[in-house]
């Protein structure tokens, strides 16, 4: 228990700092939201969906929106640390660096969920589809956690490079494929009213991905950020 209190104090300090700074600037959230809404609108006009097709494509459209908007947020969240040398400031602190990683991940997760909270009702109205299904909301929680867990780690790697804006999606999307597939399948299952037994394997995959990638990122973050 000796190291737990300092770990939690550092973790909460990082989350507090990220949320506070974002509350002031609203840079990251506004960029993610505008982008997400634009994607939804473009799909709405481009596909001119009939009601029968909607249930099939909604899951895909939603997760394309979340992953691309999330990627914008991940990039920005680490760029803020790097540009003013704050990443060095974080790394100089005498704390377990895993606490820094978890703090950044939690803050990124909150941002992604805030985007989902705003996107879901708008999508529901535009596409006349009910998205407020408890299982679907759970899928969004699990899918976005896996995505930001791996995304936060990779963005801390990409931020060291000059081509960080290009590098992050190249690194992130291949690694995030399992979580995106599982999230799309589970979301689609709920929208089509499939039986839970058909959705459960995808939820299990999401949970496994979340646990494995959060644990791996937790362990390797220190080496990734070290020069």
């Amino acid at each position: 228990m000796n190291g737990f209190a300092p770990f939690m104090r550092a973790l909460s300090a990082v989350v507090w700092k990220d949320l506070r700074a974002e509350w002031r600037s609203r840079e990251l959230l506004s960029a993610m939201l505008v982008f997400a809404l634009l994607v939804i609108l473009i799909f709405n006009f481009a596909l001119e969906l009939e009601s029968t097709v909607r249930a099939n494509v909604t899951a895909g459209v939603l997760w394309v929106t979340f992953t691309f908007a999330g990627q914008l947020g991940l990039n920005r969240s680490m760029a803020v640390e790097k540009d003013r040398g704050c990443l060095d400031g974080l790394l100089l602190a005498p704390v377990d660096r895993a606490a820094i990683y978890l703090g950044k991940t939690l803050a990124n997760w909150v941002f992604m969920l805030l985007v989902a909270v705003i996107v879901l009702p708008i999508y529901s109205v535009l596409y006349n589809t009910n998205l407020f299904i408890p299982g679907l909301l759970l899928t969004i929680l699990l899918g976005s956690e896996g995505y930001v867990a791996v995304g936060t780690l990779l963005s801390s790697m990409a931020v060291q490079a000059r081509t960080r804006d290009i590098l992050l999606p190249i690194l992130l999307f291949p690694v995030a494929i399992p979580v995106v597939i599982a999230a799309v399948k589970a979301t689609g299952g709920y929208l089509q009213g499939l039986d839970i037994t058909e959705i459960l394997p995808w939820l299990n995959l999401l949970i496994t991905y979340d646990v494995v990638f959060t644990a791996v990122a937790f362990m390797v973050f220190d080496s990734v950020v070290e020069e």
Partner: protein
Amino acid sequence: MTAIIEVSRLVKRFGPKVVLRQLDFRVETGEFVALLGPNGAGKTTFLRILSSLSRPTLGSVSVAGYSLPHQAASVRRRLGVVSHLPLLYGDLSAEENLLFYGRMYAVDKLSGRMDEVLEQVGLTNRRRDLVRTFSRGMQQRLAIGRAILHDPEVLLLDEPHTGLDQDACDMLDAALRQVAVRGRTVVMTSHDLSRAEDLASRFDVLARGTIQGSVQRQDIARDGLLGYYRKTLELSQNNAKNHKAEAAR
């Protein structure tokens, strides 16, 4: 006197490029050392190794009795670092920045310590203003406040005067003198010889990846620090030429 920083045969390579070569360095407790040298000499790399941000390739480094990189967390607790970047969050106020770093360093009685530090760097009346509204000089003073918040034994400064105008430099120097007066050990890299001469008690010249010369303030000859610096660099150039000639033979 006891050594608070001890570096022996330090080598740092980035791929095939050798930046630091067999560097030896020793600082006694309470000394204010100015590390001088031309661009590309390895000053920043050396400070990054001392601050545990970079790993040495070879050699031993110890700060406050703890060796790097193995006891990095213990070293970090005893270090304050100021670089030419402020390491501050522009969207947080001055006191929020200190609050954040104070929590990261587990500073006792943080609120009182923040008041003390803000007073020390002359920013009490701007404590609630966002850092992005600060001038470069004010940001650098707050950066010093951030670095000394946890009362570190050693302060590492990497070209802290970069980008500051005359007045801002004077205010920064006043803040640094206050830090030095309180008995902390300071290692500062600088290109500004006159400011270094005013502040430091010892001057080391780093060139070609190693310390080429070291002199105490009282031992500087009549031609001043500039004269000593030029002579040391000239000597190091001649030595390098001789080595090359010998190697060619």
